């Protein structure tokens, strides 16, 4: 029986962590992630979990302690956002390079300067090349479900990579929504007992972690990281299929929304996809064949599948809640890379929206879809990349 509750995104992920009961959590408070670790700390203080909490003095130390704990040989979780994730940057690469299956909730927040505590995707996009698996979540339900699945994906013996679960700061982390929790027992048996691999605490078989490797072998190590990433997709799908049996909720590499016969479509991550789906519906009601693709697995990026899903469209707008200044938005670049090998492909444009928590409103999606209609009809692109929802 599912438990239905009205909770914030932070509360939902904290509840997932309570049910999973990791061996060690090391974290540092940062808005808007703070509530998540506060709630988890209360579980620790009240004996609801066995977890040892390390309340470090920085995010750099949080990830460093997670690395030490994971290498020691147990299940490890943490959470951060924005500047905290940026401070961890060096250690993200160490976690993936050591193949440590740490799971981290990322409550997406903008980066300074100027200082802004609200949500955008600059943080996780800055970490996209760090060798971590990235799962993105539209709402609290998806953040909860992705957190549970992330442990299975990360800890899979053929994968052993760290994974981050992203949800939008404030918009999801702090707003209350309806959620269906699984009972504790199904979650615990779904996640299973942690299986250590080459643990540091295997004292009879001493291991050295973190060697120096120069030009003779480093290149091969990095190729191995690339190769293991190519196996992640299948594991994500297998875990999702198992999760559906437990929860009744279906997950894939991405969500296709009314895309099958669509002529125009939006590609958009996380919470804004919810707003945009309503607008797609209203366009459909007017007989306009609109659709939407919401990426879930962003690293590794499922290029072939995305290309298949979008190939029949005439025009696509990729909406990015992060920018690569002087370049295109990060999701746009991936979608274009996915579509390029096709002989015939949709026209693709890039819109940057919602930085620093600027609201993404239905009218923004309406305007973009109207522009796509125009592109589909005329084949003419007004502008390849543009900021929307900007105050002039």
């Amino acid at each position, binding site marked *: 029986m599912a438990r239905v509750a009205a909770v914030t995104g932070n509360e939902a992920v904290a509840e997932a962590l309570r049910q999973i009961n990791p*061996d*060690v959590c*090391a974290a540092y408070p940062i808005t808007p992630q703070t509530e998540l670790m506060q709630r988890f700390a209360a579980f620790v203080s009240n004996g609801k979990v*066995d*977890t*040892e909490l*390390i*309340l*470090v*003095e*920085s995010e*750099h*130390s*949080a990830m*460093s*302690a*997670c*690395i*030490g*704990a*994971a*290498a*020691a*040989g*147990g299940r*490890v979780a943490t959470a951060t956002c924005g500047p905290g994730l940026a401070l961890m940057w*060096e*250690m993200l690469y*160490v976690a993936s390079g*050591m193949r440590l299956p740490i799971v981290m909730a990322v409550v997406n927040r903008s980066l300074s300067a100027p200082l802004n505590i609200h949500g955008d995707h600059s943080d996780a996009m800055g970490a996209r090349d760090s060798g971590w698996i990235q799962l993105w979540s539209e709402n609290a339900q998806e953040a909860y479900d992705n957190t549970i699945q992330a442990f299975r994906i990360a800890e899979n013996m053929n994968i052993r990579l760290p994974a981050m679960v992203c949800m939008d700061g404030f918009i999801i982390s702090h707003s209350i929504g309806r959620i269906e929790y699984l009972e504790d027992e199904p979650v615990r048996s779904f996640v299973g007992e942690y299986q250590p691999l080459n643990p*540091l*605490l*295997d*004292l009879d078989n*001493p*291991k*050295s*972690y*973190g*060697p*120096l*490797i*120069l030009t003779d*072998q480093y290149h091969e190590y990095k190729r191995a990281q690339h190769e293991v990433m190519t196996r992640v997709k299948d594991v994500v799908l297998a875990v999702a299929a198992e999760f559906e049996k437990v929860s009744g909720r279906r997950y894939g590499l991405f969500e296709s929304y009314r895309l099958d016969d669509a002529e125009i479509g939006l590609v958009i991550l996380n919470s804004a996809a919810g707003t945009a789906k309503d607008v797609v519906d209203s366009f459909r009601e007017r007989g306009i064949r609109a659709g939407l693709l919401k990426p879930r697995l962003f690293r590794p990026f499922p290029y072939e599948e995305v290309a298949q899903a979008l190939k029949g469209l005439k025009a696509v707008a990729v909406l990015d809640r992060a920018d690569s200044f002087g370049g295109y938005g990060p999701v746009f670049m991936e979608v274009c890379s996915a579509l390029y090998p096709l002989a015939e492909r949709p026209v693709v444009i890039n819109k940057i929206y919602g930085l620093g928590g600027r609201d993404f409103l239905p009218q923004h999606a309406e305007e973009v879809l109207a522009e796509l209609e125009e592109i589909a009809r005329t084949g003419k692109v007004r502008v390849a990349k543009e900021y929307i929802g900007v105050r002039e």
Partner: protein
Amino acid sequence: MATEQLKLRELAKKEVLITSGHRLCAGCGAPIIAKMVLLAAADYPVVACSPTGCLEVSTCISDYTAWKVPWIHSAFENAGATLSGVETMYRALKKKGKIDKEVKFIAIGGDGGTYDIGLQSLSGAMERGHDLLYVCYDNGAYMNTGIQRSSATPLGADTTTSPAGSVIPGKLQRRKDLTRIMAAHNIPYAAQASPSHWSDFIRKVRKALSIKGPKFINVISPCNRGWRSRLDDAIQLSRLAVQTCYWPLYEVEDGVVRVTYKPREKKPIEEFLKPQGRFKHLFTPENEWIVKRFQEDVDREWERLQKEESLYT
């Protein structure tokens, strides 16, 4: 058991847990210190950790490792945090009955990774009270990257980033007193040691390991490349550091200061400075003031330490 002093004969029987064949320079103090620490800890299962630095890059170059105990290096500025993660997982698994051994956790890092870039991480680990021992081998500069000044570099030293030039005569600042900073964390045990006084050093490591909680030992570690000294002078120079009171041997146990070695006759600081090329430029008339100030600093600190000790005796 572990607090008992070991005789040299007994020490010699212990397995050396850091093997020869590592690639540290001939005459380096760091492997001597690492070897002594591991010999002193030989009664326990040990997990070791090093920040990036000379000892780290020279002891684990894939596919080889000199470490016969489990060992982890993750980055430069985070040995305190990394080892606190390992130690915490140990406690988590012990609580669940998945491990039953009494394991000791020891970090060994240079002054760059300890005094400077790793200070925050170390301070955090000490404040949180992890059951671990952090040993700093202090060679007084970033030797691994080519002898750049650190906050452990002594006054006047010629390094590649504080070169003795025609206008600036080497490093103009005093070194940071990290042992006092660590003691100020109110940890159960902080000490200063030297490989020249091996018996005192081994005793301090064994005492530290017998105490629960965070411990810190700062060990002077001559570097013939950076100090521009004779290849076979490491032990002699560390002895001179002690005999001049540049590097007093003492411990702070639960706040109580005890000087563990008092030289019968305090040698002038010149005896420590002169054999080292990094101080060569100080022995000119225009730089006399630096040697004088150096001696004054040493005298004042030695006086202060003895006064502190007298508060408890």
